[in-house]
């Protein structure tokens, strides 16, 4: 068996909503069999809009999706029996019991697990006779997961599966997802919990404003981020008293009051240089904080960077307009 054969292939995917809003703007990625791929992004980044297209719930405005070699929208009957999915929000009649809900869903699912097995997978066995409206938010998420797993899917789509779960429930869900992955299930996960992606994903992509801003293994994405050093400038010293930042391998710095923040891709070199300088000068660096790049860093930087770009584009646009109006005025005079 070729484990590298892509189970999900997304090529230049686009989604434009009725009002003209372009939520997905040319997204491409592949997920191999047995891989766990996480889509990260701020609220409104286009995660759910993207996943819905891959699940075959809507037709893309442009680009192509293949799931298990089929178009999930037009060849839905070929794809659906082999996938399981969990939406961001449940959608179960509140007056049915857990057990009735599972039975109803089982009657609509090819090769469904027995009800007891499905409920014990997610730890809801003792809640079988409880009406859905009486379940806690976390229990509803777990019922949703049980239904997603009911047909022993080859591909599992999880849209923010642990939102609303407590720490323990989250751990249990992660354990279950790891087990499924170990058994060869391909998983596409969206989440806004960075540690969830870092701990579970083989590869991930960070979406921003409908595009993939960065993708790779968690280690790759993290490594691409600069490390940071911050400290308080000792009293009586000025930023100019520090050793030349270039020689420390520092790529950028910020000064806020007396707090200095440095960015570097060579953390050990920069830290050694800085600490040696402090040692020789005989000063203490208060509030010293040295940290390597993290997924959180990457995430925040992308959000900030892209919004800066947007702001720049906006300014450029306004400048252009002013220029134009001046120009037309001149023309008028001429």
């Amino acid at each position, binding site marked *: 068996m070729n484990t590298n054969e892509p189970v999900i292939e997304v090529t230049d995917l686009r989604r434009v909503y009725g009002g003209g809003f372009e939520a997905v703007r040319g997204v491409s990625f592949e997920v191999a069999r047995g891989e766990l791929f996480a889509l990260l992004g701020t609220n409104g980044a286009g995660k759910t809009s993207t996943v819905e297209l891959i699940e075959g719930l809507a037709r893309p405005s442009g680009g192509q999706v293949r799931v298990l070699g089929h178009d999930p929208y037009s060849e839905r009957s070929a794809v659906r029996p082999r996938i399981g999915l969990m939406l961001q929000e449940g959608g179960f009649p509140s007056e049915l019991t857990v057990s009735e809900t599972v039975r109803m869903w089982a009657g*609509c699912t090819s090769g469904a697990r027995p009800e007891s097995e499905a409920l014990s997978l997610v730890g809801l066995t003792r809640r079988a006779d409880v009406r859905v409206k009486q379940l806690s938010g976390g229990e509803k998420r777990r019922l949703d997961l049980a239904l997603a797993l009911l047909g022993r899917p080859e591909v599992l789509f999880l849209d923010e599966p642990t939102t609303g779960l407590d720490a323990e429930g989250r751990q249990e869900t992660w354990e279950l997802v790891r087990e499924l992955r170990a058994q060869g299930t391909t998983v596409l996960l969206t989440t806004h919990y960075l540690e969830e992606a870092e701990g579970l994903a083989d590869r991930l992509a960070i979406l921003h404003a409908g595009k993939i801003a960065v993708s790779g293994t968690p280690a790759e994405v993290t490594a691409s981020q600069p490390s940071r050093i911050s400290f308080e400038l000792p009293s009586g010293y000025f930023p100019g008293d520090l050793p030349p930042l270039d020689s420390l391998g520092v790529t950028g710095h910020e000064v806020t009051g007396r707090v200095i923040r440095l960015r570097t891709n060579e953390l050990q070199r920069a830290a050694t240089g800085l600490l040696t300088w402090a040692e020789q000068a005989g000063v203490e660096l208060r509030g010293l904080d040295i940290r390597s790049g993290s997924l959180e860093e990457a995430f925040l930087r992308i959000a900030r960077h892209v919004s800066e770009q947007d702001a720049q584009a906006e300014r450029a646009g306004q400048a252009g307009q002013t220029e134009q109006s001046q120009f037309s005025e001149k023309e008028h005079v001429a």
Partner: protein
Amino acid sequence: MSADTVTRTAPAESTVTAVGRMTSLARAELTLLARSRATFFAAVFVPLILPLSLRSTVEDMDLKGSGLSVGSVILPSAIGFSLLFAVYSSLVSVYAARREELVLKRLRTGELRDAEILMGAAVPSVLIGLVQSLVLTAACAALMDVGTPEAPLLAVLGLLLGLMMWPALAAVTASFSRSVEGAQVAAMPLLLISMVGSGTVVPFEVMPDRLARFCELLPLSPVITLIRGGWAGNLSTSETLGALATALAWIVLAVFAVHKWFRWEPRR
């Protein structure tokens, strides 16, 4: 795709049938209907009680020369009420409630096809409508001396067309609402027009001609006409064909409208 994957994958295609899926959904809907007392009462008892209130009115009508008896006016009306309340009105609520609870959206992520979702959810209401119609027929035969139908096939056809038409109209109506309460309001116009204009309370035979010709085009009218005509046996071929065509046109129109405009998710 490599051959390996094809042989490896477990259920390469659906192993549950469309009927199996709809049965499963219908069973859940029946459970829900039984648990929703207000809907259940409105669906089951209103259509059984309404015809009684009609009786004295019909007895006062001048039916001489129209070829109708009291029983043959009341029975089609009673079946009409059953279609309006047990099928149409209750299904409008069901579709709207399932949409607002995101149930429809969730169901669409599974193997059920769109039409199966709508039809499966309609099964309990359609069954209630069918059973009610049969009970009402038996009751009218026993209590009002309605006699035996002259053209039973037409009456059966009328009922079946009605049972196809009203769920589809319910789905259309549910599309024009934002909540379950809103859905009930959205159902009122068609409900009232049908009660007044489709020959349930006032037979076409006693209406002014021009008004009667317009009212014959309402969705419930051909159903009433076919059932009433089926009993009286007084429908000409052109009247029969006209009623059949009207009923089919409404069904086609409603199915088209559902296909085009049905909303599967709440408006946000």
